[in-house]
């Protein structure tokens, strides 16, 4: 009976899929080092109608998701990769009929092949990737107790000649689309906590950079701050009610908190130095930011009212780009090197700072919503591209941006995270686009 809540939860997550059977298998991955070995067998498909997504495409999407999870080591049966020290096998059936896809996903232990997870996912054929991602996330949930991030998206900035546009894509690179076509400079995207909106800074108005919000699904842009001087570095608060940002309307760059429509600015810093790049703690009670008040740029932490400012680290030189982990216990940041930047992680009191990513320049680290991964921009292979690393930093994986250069990534929240009071009324209540 103790399994019942989990089954209910899985059934709820599986909508519109119908039924779920689970057998509880939990593997502790807290150590981070050991990964469960999975053998992915091809989905069995009958005759597929013309134009339908092939089961092999689904096989590859699933295997890619499971590798990306950092929970599993994956061997693909259809590539002739032999099973090696396998602990579980994935497989199932794939049906496409009448514009609908049905995926019957199965996970069995190995070698006994007793069922661990069996679940049916149904949806429109056009959304077939989403069904596969759900299956992958459920497999991660089954093995770790927490859903995976296969259904998340990445916002990023793509250079286009001298200009930069805001883009968004699925984590696996599918569905990439430009959200701006301003032929201007878009920078510093930040997701609203419900994943529906992106705040960013742009030079599209001519003159100084202003803050805008755009629906993540595409659509009209809405101006949220066009005060004199800088309007940069936006960061949605965890409850979606506020946006922390950098303004210089009072003569110097300072951290402010605005309401989500851009009004009621509340100044948090008051200092002749540069203050920028705010990042909220997941409780919303504290904000990490960069300041050069001690002579060189350094990450600091303050309370949400601007009080209790303390420098984060003293043993790492020139630090910037703080990103507070969604679990609340770590802060990622960059430290300057002769080649650019390395990515570090430390405790929220600055203790235990450790190098995570080096080689080339590695910039703008941002957390996955499960706190297991960091996405960052790097020129380690030449042009700037996006990479994902686990906290152990081993062999960062390049994200697929279709061969285009990319920088300033921001990882969406999980699709089933439900933050309260997200300002979905921003667009309608602000039709003129002026604060």
């Amino acid at each position, binding site marked *: 009976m103790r399994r019942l809540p989990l089954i209910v939860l899985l059934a709820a997550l599986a909508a519109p899929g119908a039924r779920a059977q689970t057998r509880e298998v939990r593997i502790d991955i807290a150590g981070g080092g050991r990964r469960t070995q999975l053998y992915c067998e091809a989905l069995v498909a009958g005759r597929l109608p013309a134009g339908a997504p092939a089961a092999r495409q689904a096989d590859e999407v699933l295997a890619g998701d499971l590798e990306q999870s950092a929970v599993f080591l994956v061997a693909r049966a259809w590539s002739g990769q032999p099973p090696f020290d396998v602990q579980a096998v994935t497989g199932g059936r794939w049906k496409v009929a009448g514009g609908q896809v049905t995926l019957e996903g199965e996970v069995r232990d190995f070698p006994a092949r007793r069922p661990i997870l069996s679940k049916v996912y149904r949806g429109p054929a056009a959304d077939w990737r989403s069904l596969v991602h759900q299956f992958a996330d459920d497999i991660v949930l089954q093995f770790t107790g927490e859903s995976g991030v296969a259904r998340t998206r990445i916002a990023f900035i793509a250079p286009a000649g*001298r200009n930069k546009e805001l883009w968004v894509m699925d984590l696996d690179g599918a569905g990439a689309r430009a959200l701006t076509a301003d032929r201007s400079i878009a920078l510093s995207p930040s997701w609203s906590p419900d994943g529906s909106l992106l705040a960013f800074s742009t030079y599209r108005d*001519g003159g100084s950079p202003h803050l805008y919000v755009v629906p993540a699904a595409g659509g009209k842009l809405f101006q949220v701050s066009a005060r004199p001087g*800088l309007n*940069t570095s936006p960061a949605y608060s965890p409850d979606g009610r506020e946006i922390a940002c950098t303004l*210089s309307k009072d003569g110097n760059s300072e951290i402010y908190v605005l309401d989500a429509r851009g009004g009621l600015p509340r100044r948090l810093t008051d200092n002749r130095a540069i203050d920028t790049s705010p990042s909220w703690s997941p409780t919303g009670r504290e904000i990490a930011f960069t300041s050069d008040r001690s002579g060189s*740029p350094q990450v600091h932490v303050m309370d949400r009212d601007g009080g209790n400012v303390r420098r984060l680290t003293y043993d790492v030189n020139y630090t910037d780009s703080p990103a507070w982990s969604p679990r609340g216990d770590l802060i990622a940041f960059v430290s*300057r090197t002769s080649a650019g930047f390395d990515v570090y992680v430390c405790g929220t009191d600055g203790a235990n700072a450790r190098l995570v990513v080096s080689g080339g320049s590695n910039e703008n680290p941002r957390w996955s919503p499960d706190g297991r991964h960091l996405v960052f921009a790097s020129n380690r292979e030449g042009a700037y591209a996006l990479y994902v690393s686990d906290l152990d930093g081993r062999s960062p994986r390049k994200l697929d941006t279709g061969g285009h250069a990319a920088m300033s990534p921001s990882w969406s929240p999980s699709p089933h995270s439900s933050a309260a009071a997200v300002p979905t009324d921003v667009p309608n209540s602000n039709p003129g686009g002026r604060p």
Partner: protein
Amino acid sequence: MRKAPVLLVVLVVGLAALLAAGCAKKAKEAPPTPPPAPPVVQSPTPSTTPSTTPETPGSEPAVTKGDFTDAFFDLDSYTLRDDARAALDLAAKLLRDKPDVNITLEGHCDERGTVEYNQALGEKRANAARDYLVAAGVPAARVQTLSYGKERPFAEGHDESAWAQNRRAHFVLR
């Protein structure tokens, strides 16, 4: 077999020529680019859009961009160097003599440093130059500032000579 050394020599000479050509080409690749044109503006808010008209019609003799020298900065610094002060002294005299000339000072940074920090640093540079001009008698209303951070480099290279070119407060007539 006896032809091998000859072949080898031909190969080596050929390779050397190719390399030399490659180097020569490379050396030519990164001259300092001319100052950037103002950004393409498609603005829904004309009130905040600075005019990009280079000079006021009818003013004579015309002041041109070439009459101004940009103020350059050290790494991570917004302190005015002696050469920057000299450039700004000349600019202040010019602006005092031509009361109809208005300018925008653009702050620029080299590529080292993050996007957001460089936006703030560029503004510090533009403000330092503006404050100097105002102290030298130029009305503040005639000097706007704007920071591009590292987004509009003058020189595209990735070495100290390019970086030095890109750390500046840049004069734009408006």
